[in-house]
């Protein structure tokens, strides 16, 4: 209690600094968004090649710094997780707050298969995707009737129930003690054991996720998603099967989160129910929204920033999460569309007016209208 004044002063300073940093960065994000938005197909492709190139040689450059390498692996894993939630939240507009459940299912399936049955990682990876996807289906079907806040609390409930099962079903999951000793994956008789190997493994998974995301976004199906998200009733009137699309979003998002979980299990060699709490779902949700709901580059950036930030803030240990909370609030106030706004990205400056307009709408508008 004695340090109240001290804490208040420090936090006020932090707020002011954060405010200006976000304001300044905001300009930078706008620039990037406009540049990417206005870019022609060819330049865009070239840019992607350059980024891919940098990502491919990155581990060789930073192999001297294992901490940075490890943080990079974790960051890319969160890119996969955030993109998988983006299917549900960004594309289909369903507020799912139990995403860590799918991540946990994937991790546990892999852990159990690899430890108990000595099954190869690759089969376990696919099994994890299938099982998680199945649970995504199970959750997706009954929740079709629910919208917005009710869906949010139901998905929270789903996540919590799953975590309690992991804790209480001691015979299978070993309960809170977790499953240690998960082996490293093997490829062509070669064991991936160092972080460089894991880096390429998760990068592969990230490329796969980005590929599916962007293919989907630009396909007929993807346009259907956007239509359902913006106005479900109008979309249905146009002949879009919104039920099918929503379930598909859940299944796809869950399956990819399951694969990320599978990777996590072999990466850390230890799974424990504490990894898959409600807070973990919230973290992934923040990544998606802070990055820019629905926009692929935005979500990627959001995941990277929100993974690196807590690590970078380690120096101020005790103030770390207080500042994290402040950042969330300020970001949402100053930059409601996220770092890279999808609408702005789509049309660049050309239809800025429309972009500004849409953000006044509510994402699950149908629920809140009376």
């Amino acid at each position, binding site marked *: 209690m004695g340090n*109240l004044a001290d804490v208040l002063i420090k936090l006020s300073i932090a707020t002011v600094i954060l405010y200006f940093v976000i304001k300044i960065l905001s300009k930078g994000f706008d620039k990037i968004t406009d540049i990417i938005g206005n870019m022609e197909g060819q330049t865009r492709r070239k840019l992607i090649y350059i980024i891919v190139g940098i990502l491919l040689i990155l581990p060789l450059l930073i192999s001297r710094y294992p901490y940075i390498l490890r943080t990079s692996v974790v960051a890319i894993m969160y890119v996969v997780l955030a993109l998988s939630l983006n299917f549900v939240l960004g594309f289909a507009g369903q507020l799912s707050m139990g995403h860590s459940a799918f991540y946990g299912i994937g991790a546990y399936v892999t852990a159990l298969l690899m430890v108990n049955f000595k099954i190869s990682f690759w089969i376990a990876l696919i099994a994890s995707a299938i099982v998680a996807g199945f649970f995504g289906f199970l959750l997706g079907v009954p929740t079709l009737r629910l919208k917005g806040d*009710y869906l949010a609390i139901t998905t929270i409930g789903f996540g919590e129930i799953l975590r309690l099962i992991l804790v209480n079903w001691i015979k299978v999951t070993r309960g809170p003690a977790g499953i240690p000793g998960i082996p490293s994956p093997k490829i062509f008789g070669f064991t991936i054991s160092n972080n460089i190997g894991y880096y390429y493994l998760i990068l592969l998974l990230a490329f796969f996720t980005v590929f599916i995301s962007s293919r989907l976004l630009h396909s007929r199906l993807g346009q259907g998603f956007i239509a359902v998200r913006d106005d479900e009733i109008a979309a249905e009137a146009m002949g879009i099967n919104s039920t099918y699309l929503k379930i598909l979003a859940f299944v796809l998002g869950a399956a990819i989160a399951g694969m990320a979980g599978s990777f996590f299990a072999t990466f850390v060699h230890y799974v424990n129910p504490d990894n898959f709490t409600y807070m973990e779902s919230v973290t992934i949700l923040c990544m998606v929204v802070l990055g820019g*709901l629905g926009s692929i580059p935005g979500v990627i950036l959001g995941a990277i920033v929100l993974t690196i930030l807590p690590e970078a803030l380690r120096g101020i240990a005790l103030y770390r999460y207080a500042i994290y909370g402040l950042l*969330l609030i300020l970001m*949402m*106030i100053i930059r409601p569309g996220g770092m890279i706004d999808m609408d702005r990205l789509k049309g660049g400056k050309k239809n800025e007016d429309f972009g500004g307009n849409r953000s006044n709408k509510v994402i699950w508008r149908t629920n809140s209208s009376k």
Partner: protein
Amino acid sequence: MFLEQLSNGIALGSLYALTAVGYTMVYGIIRLINFAHGDIYMMGAFFAYTAIAYFNLPLVPSFLIGMVCAALLGVFIAKFAYTPVFNAPKINLFLCAIGTAIFLENFAMLVWGPETQSFPTMIKNEIYTFGGFKFTKLQAVILITSILLVLILSYIVKKTKIGRAMRCASQDMVAARLMGINTNKVIFITFALGSSLGAAAGTLVAMYYKAVYPMMGFSAGLKAFVSAVIGGIGSITGAMFGGLIMGIAESLGAAYISSGYRDAIAFIILIIILLFKPTGLFGKTVKEKV
């Protein structure tokens, strides 16, 4: 054994109910799942604790100080964290609430320290038996305070001018504004009332368990949320019933099913109720506007 478990459940449920009422009020007006409500409840308990432990005030003034400070905090949060994003997509408001929750938890940890503080014993605990029911003096105090607070609240909402304005705003914010209602004022008063109720609940719970700690709002907030949804979000009677149902279900579930799945029972009831009545027990079905 069954009666005992039932009275355990009612005692627990009345605590949930009180938290849920504040939750449901804020929701009724601005349609915001206030994730920070649990943390305002925690801050309220800490304010009252500070008044007692540091300034040696008696219980009732401390209790009121906790409520007033929490009301101010609620208005402060509404002003600086929520109103700026009112016109943005709803998910932004949602994230602001989550950000506020994370911030408050860690703020309390910085100011009061991370450890559990013991809340001074202000009411000597005596046990009464009444029929098969067994209850303590503290439980009775909690129940009476809860009922009193909810009665005051109902009076404000139903009988006063500002209450009418609140009900108007909850029906249609835009129309209310057109009718000359100062909706900003309504929002702030709603937050003040909701937060002071939260603080009252927090202080009562802290007294009941003789403990205050920074993380106490987290699961309480979630439970209050579930109670409010079970009862039908926005309905004060619903929130009371929701809280009682939760408390009883948890106690009986922990006793007859498994204590490990205790928190799951609440969620399972929630999911079942929502599947059959998607707006909760007392919620009004809202027609979709096309």
